[in-house]
């Protein structure tokens, strides 16, 4: 029992860090650009599928780790430039466009990749022993890489000029523009980076979860919730919420059906969202 709990805890931490990686993508697009990106889950699935093909053709997971963010990030750049930029400022325009992109991407995957779930083999074989139970090294690797990327993201946002510009644009786009910041290009780069984050998370999780066209829906919803609950742009808080909710989910899943667990988790986070943002009087600002 104790070892089950520990395993669930470790699994939760690993999964939570991966969710946080997804959420970092949302920090960039939703937090900083205030763009409700409903295609985030689709880009995650696209990352997993592109990774699947890359690994099966090139036989190198390392190469895929470079290739996947680059290609899917490129798709994100194109989407921003040609689909989203023209409707910036149209009420709900961006939400609808990203929903359209999600439909196109997900069902294109269905057409090409097929509907049957497939799984990528572990690129790192071997186990470590946790309380006498073998635990795949690859999962720990996912956690470590995700954590490294979180740290990297925070460093870029807080220590570099690019990060400063992104934060400035978020706080006052008009002023940023007036100061001569390349707001249009910053938006492009931020969206591309957000997309690359989602794709990278998809690739890293491809050996752990089933790869299929609709794999992005739940993780997208959870990352939206942890992003909002963590405070939109506060990466550390978002990471904490992500890990905490993932540990909770994994522990509960010891007793409940996994689908039901995830549904319950979503509703708990949803209730938290309503409790915080659905209060009276928020709108009465002048």
């Amino acid at each position, binding site marked *: 029992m104790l070892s089950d709990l520990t395993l669930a805890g470790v699994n939760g931490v690993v999964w939570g860090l991966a969710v946080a990686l997804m959420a970092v993508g949302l920090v960039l697009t939703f937090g900083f650009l205030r763009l409700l990106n409903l295609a985030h889950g689709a880009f995650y699935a696209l990352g997993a599928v592109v990774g699947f093909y890359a690994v099966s053709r090139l036989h190198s997971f390392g190469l895929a780790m470079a290739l996947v963010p680059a290609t899917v990030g490129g798709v994100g750049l194109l989407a921003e430039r040609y*689909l989203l930029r023209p409707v910036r400022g149209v009420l709900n325009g961006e939400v609808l466009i990203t929903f*359209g992109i999600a439909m196109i991407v997900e069902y294109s995957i269905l057409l090409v990749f097929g509907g049957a779930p497939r799984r990528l083999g572990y690129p790192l074989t071997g186990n470590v022993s946790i309380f006498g139970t073998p635990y795949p090294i690859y999962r720990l690797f996912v956690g470590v890489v995700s954590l490294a990327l979180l740290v990297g993201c925070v460093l870029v946002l807080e220590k570099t000029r690019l990060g400063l510009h992104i934060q400035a644009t978020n706080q006052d786009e008009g002023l940023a523009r007036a100061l001569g910041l390349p707001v249009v290009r910053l938006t492009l780069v931020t969206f591309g980076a957000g997309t690359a984050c989602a794709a990278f998370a998809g690739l890293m999780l491809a050996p752990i979860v089933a790869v299929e066209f609709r794999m992005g829906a739940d993780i997208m919803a959870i990352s939206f919730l942890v992003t909002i609950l963590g405070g939109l742009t506060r990466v550390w808080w978002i990471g904490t919420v992500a890990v905490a909710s993932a540990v909770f989910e994994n522990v509960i899943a010891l007793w409940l059906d996994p689908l039901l667990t995830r549904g319950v988790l979503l509703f708990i986070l949803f209730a938290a969202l*309503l409790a915080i943002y659905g209060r009276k009087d928020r709108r009465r600002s002048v």
Partner: protein
Amino acid sequence: MTRRLAWLGAILALGSAGLFLPGYYQFLYYEVAAWGLLALSVEILYGQAGMLSFGQSVFLALSGYVFLHLSKIPEVGLLGAALIAMATSILVAAALGPVMVRLEGHYFVIATVILALGSFLVASSLTRWTGGDDGLPAGPFARTLLGPIPLPAVMNRPEALYLAVGLAVAAMFGLTWKVRASVLGLLVAGIKHEPFRMWAIGVPVASLRYGIWCLAAAAAAVGGVSLIVVNRYASATQFHWSVSGEGVVWAILGGVNTVWGAWLGAAALVTVKDLLSTRFAFYPILVGMLLIALVHLRSEGLLRAVTRVLGRGSVWRHARSLQLQSPAKVQLMQQILPIEGPPRTLLALQAVGKVFGGTVALDRCNLEIGTASFSVLLHDGRRYHLQASGGGYPALALVGPNGAGKTTLLNVLCGYVGPDAGTISSDTLVIESGRAIGGIGRSFQEPRLWDRLSVYENLLMGALARRSWRDLRRPVGADKAGAEAAVALASRLGLLQELEKDASALSFGKRKVLDIGVALASKPKLLVLDEPTAGVSPREMTELEGLVREVTGSIPVVLVEHNLDAIRRLGLPVLFMAEGRLLEYGPLDEVLSRESVREQFSGLRAGEE
């Protein structure tokens, strides 16, 4: 009576029309009718109220499943099952509603996505009840109608069930149509475009949104039952937010803010879906591309393209059909509620303070505003009374340097922000936790209008803002009092020629006039004006001054104004504020000559002379 009959006839005709179609098309007609309710549900929320929802599929699927299970039980009966199923969905929506409708913008969208996704996951896991992704077949249906009442023999024919679906759908259509044409519909349209101003003129925004949310859920709930009857099948995937997303695309394709559009869009795309059924992956891709194209083209949908050719919407036509006479010269007095009875206190501020993040915006302000007099207690303890002259009403101008707290004081007067310290009381207005609810008209420095509605509708919005719940369901056109008030007001404001124009098409000066007009139309007891003459051309300035002069004779007024010449011409007493304190009171030139004011105000005074 004839109108009622015509409505009934139309509903019967719509509901039964499909029965005359051959085989497959008969099925398609009723399938589209049922799916159209999902699009209608989205349309009610998004098109009418501006709340984009991806969660309507939940109410559709939930009522569908409840009906699927109950319809097999003879003790419940078909009708009983349908009623319970719809009630379940509506009750769930009603329980979620109070918090959902308070979420703003993106948060509302994301909450609906999560609601749908969470429901989908739970439904998928409860395979015993839902059949999971593979779904469950419906039936065999019970042979009873309601409890012990047996099903009439004629109901055993498939056409009879189709007809029942058709009638239910047509009834929902009729209901939505009525709501859209009612006072409620106009107010909801106002909330969509300028929720804050709606709240400011006294409309219970959250309650109306809640009503619309429940109506939308009802549409989806009827749709859910109808789909089971037509398709005889339900699947957990119907909970998924992408199903709602399809509804969004149908509604947009058909035409946002139209009622027919929901079915037009559904008809177009459900037909395509059926045609592509062997290659079902192509359909969502097509839908995605179509949606992107529609948004990029700023398309208003199929039906809007038609109505654009046929002419403008119905609200103004109704008013014209009333043949209102617009008198050549209307006294503004008549449009404003006469303040009757003995003098009353409208607002009494006692030691009111407000701090914004460490900055003191208001520091122990004492001000009493009554229908016949104002009373000011200055920061140093001097007290002044302002009596209305000769049967008129008191009026006061707030002056002071930027950051003096003038606008904050106005916002506190209007109840937009609650005070941090002190008390606010009234013996005429409703005060809730330091905020006046309704009864105070406010114009804004930057006009806050419904830009995409006509001038007439803008004024009507003000006039209809505080109707009772009973009046809300009546058609806009039938509200003669509101229409008369709006037209008379337009006549006085010199906007008669522009009644049919969109508010966005007016010049800045006319927009400011209209902004004051909207505030007046809501029949306030106190009018609060924020820089009524700022930023307008000299000629429009004269016009606005004339308006303000007339208004100050008809109703108590508090205004903020930087234009000292205008205050002098209007002959208003001034209250001088600085650093959140009420410092001086008196006629303008007397106040300006005082030492303390000169110190604080020297820049402006030098510029003025």
